[in-house]
């Protein structure tokens, strides 16, 4: 493949991974590479990034695709592994052959091999040397990542296998012990070590993708395994590491929204003329009024009541939304928040007292206890209890926001109560974290509730940000 072919395919793969690369930007990249001449790989990466990557939240996807099209190594990389002896064997066979002391690295797995490897990894995590971690990630995939290929000779690799065997998370405590620290002695160091474990995990992922790309072509891998930016990841399918990233996105997102909102408020038509200030300003130009001065506008702020389903699957969605709403609370006159499973529980004060998102999240999770009587989601019961216990919460100046997937275990929906709530409030919305195509399937009461309260799909941070912006 010529360099230009590779370039074209690379740009195409970036587009598939969700980076909006324009034709002009593609040409800029060609010019950049042209003036650079043949360069070292990291320089090439920098040149591509400078010309094609225009948003930092696309960085991860960009790097993954770059690594596929411009890999650092080929094959087994740093070590030449003889033969493909294990390719048609079961992983169990591979383990046995590890026990029997085979020299091959591919698939060489067994208690001793694993123990040795984990020891080496523990040392590397303590040192935090990226090169050593990269080397170990490669070795880990070779040893523990092999899964049986479909056809003869087709090797396949899985990071799940590796993580399952190696469990780097569990090594964090050992690293800390090695430093003479108990698990909770120093949370700051602990976090640094955990970050190293995550680096290792990402390196393993990258190595698996690289190997897959050698077998199935980079295009295939780019299409199937590159995940979108965190703002596009569905709340309901987020992994633990994603949730952490999402939580960290909330404050910046709130800041961006607040900036945007204050700009838009300034951009609205000016307030009434301020005669005295205009005259005073004209003094400096000999009494000629060059500039008019205006009185500030008074944007009308509304109250907001949020009802959130905090049962299992949608709890994360609810807490992100609440965190965002409270981060923007200056935009509202008053915000009250209630959580429910089948019982209603007010959580407003938890947001008012604490500025700490990590703590808020865990307190919110704990509050699910109070929101749950029988433990099975029951929207009808929760709405009824809300109407009974907080009859004054909704006024003609209040907007009502319901968060949840509308899955109510086939219980009574209490539609008349919901109708009364919508009459009491100024406007009502329902945010549903499920993909709209899944509404109305199974026990979803999206259609019934959607007739009373306009239902909006809100699957990821991007959609959430847009909605909250329009709400404020």
């Amino acid at each position, binding site marked *: 493949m010529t360099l230009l072919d590779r370039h074209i395919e690379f740009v195409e793969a970036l587009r598939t991974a969700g980076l909006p690369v324009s034709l002009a930007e593609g040409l800029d990249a060609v010019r950049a590479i042209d003036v650079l001449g043949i360069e070292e790989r990291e320089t090439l990466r920098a040149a591509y990034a400078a010309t094609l990557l225009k948003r930092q939240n696309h960085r991860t996807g960009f790097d993954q695709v770059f690594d596929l099209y411009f890999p650092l190594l080929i094959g087994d990389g740093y070590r030449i592994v003889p033969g493909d002896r294990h390719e048609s064997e079961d992983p169990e066979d591979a383990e046995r052959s590890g026990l029997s002391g085979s020299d091959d690295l591919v698939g060489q797995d067994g208690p001793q091999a694993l123990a040795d490897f984990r020891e080496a990894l523990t040392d590397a995590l303590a040192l935090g040397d990226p090169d050593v971690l990269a080397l170990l990630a490669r070795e880990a995939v070779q040893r523990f990542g092999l899964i049986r290929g479909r056809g003869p000779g087709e090797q396949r690799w899985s990071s799940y296998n590796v993580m399952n065997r190696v469990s780097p998370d569990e090594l964090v405590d050992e690293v800390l012990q090695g430093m003479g620290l108990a698990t909770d002695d120093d949370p700051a160091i602990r976090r640094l070590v955990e970050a190293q474990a995550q680096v290792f995990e990402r390196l393993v992922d990258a190595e698996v993708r690289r190997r897959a790309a050698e077998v199935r072509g980079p295009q295939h891998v780019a299409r199937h395994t590159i995940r979108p930016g965190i703002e596009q990841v569905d709340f309901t399918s987020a992994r633990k590491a994603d949730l952490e990233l999402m939580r960290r996105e909330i404050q910046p997102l709130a800041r961006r929204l607040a900036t945007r909102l204050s700009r838009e408020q300034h951009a609205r038509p000016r307030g009434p003329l301020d005669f005295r200030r205009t005259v005073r300003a004209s003094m400096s*130009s000999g009494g000629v009024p060059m500039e008019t001065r205006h009185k500030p506008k008074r944007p009308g702020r509304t109250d907001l009541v949020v009802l959130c389903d905090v049962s299992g699957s949608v709890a994360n969605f609810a807490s992100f939304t609440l965190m965002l709403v409270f981060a923007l609370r200056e935009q509202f006159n008053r915000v009250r928040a209630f959580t429910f499973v089948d019982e209603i529980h007010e959580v407003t004060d938890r947001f008012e007292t604490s500025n700490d998102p990590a703590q808020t999240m865990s307190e919110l999770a704990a509050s699910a206890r109070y929101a749950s009587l029988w433990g099975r989601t029951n929207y009808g019961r929760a709405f009824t209890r809300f109407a009974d216990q907080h009859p004054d919460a909704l006024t003609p100046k209040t907007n009502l926001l319901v968060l949840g997937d509308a899955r109510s275990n086939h219980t009574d929906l209490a539609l008349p109560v919901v109708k009364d709530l919508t009459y009491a409030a100024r406007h009502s919305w329902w945010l549903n974290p499920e993909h709209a195509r899944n509404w109305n399937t199974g026990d979803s009461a999206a259609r019934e509730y959607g007739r009373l309260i306009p239902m909006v799909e809100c699957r990821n941070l991007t959609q959430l940000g847009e909605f909250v912006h329009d709400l404020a």
Partner: protein
Amino acid sequence: MTQKSSWFESPADADKRLAEVGYLSDTATSTTSYLAGALEKPLLVEGPAGVGKTELAKAIARATGADLVRLQCYEGLDEARALYEWNYKKQLLRIQAAGDQSWDETHDDIFTDEFLLTRPLLTAIRREEPTVLLIDEVDKTDVEVEGLLLEVLSDFQVTIPEMGTIVAVRRPLVVLTSNATRELSEAIKRRCLFLHIDYPDSEREREIVVSQVPEVEEELAGQIVEVVAKLRGMELRKAPSIAETIDWARTLVALGTGTLDAAAIDQTLGVILKHASDHDRAVRELRLRAR
């Protein structure tokens, strides 16, 4: 015709010359700075506050012997402050003093260079010497200003209705910075090369500290950088930036601190953390006080 100006010869050259003027670069920064000159494209530098975005523009100017023209952006910045403005007061006086001169003549008189207040964008375009144009903190402006920037950065020319079109004799190297408090328009981004600067890794940060505060002992610098890394790992409202790391090092040197122990950190934490809640959290998580 625009003159071809030579900025850096290669990424390695950029790296070396930036280091010579005190800016410690990395591969991405050097490569992108080189490309900005070689391709004559504006460079948009994005990243959190205090990671050296503004300093990069200044360092490029120092390293290439160019002069720096700076447009500081703020909310409410308008064309009159960014591009040019007529000096009304002076014009008014001139009109009053015109006596029986015909209006046409007066008109021609008052719309000349003498009455023109050039602002940074126009200044940069008119300069004949090598110029780095720094448009600092673009994210603070309103969207309309982006439209203006786009016009200027596309053609490097400015049309003043009363005077005609002014074309750049020599294109300035343009650096825009943004703290990403909002997304800039797609059009601006398409026009620019993009560089995201983040907090540096510990090794580079230590080098930066040592180069900026030469009095600091290597060991102390290492300890400072290590604590700063821990602080950045915490979820703080405002994480410490390079600027704060440097300030901290200066403070500790001034206090004659030899080793950074819990007491020393506790005493001086105010230098790097600006919010009370961040302060409390750091004291708690770094176990600074015996419980």
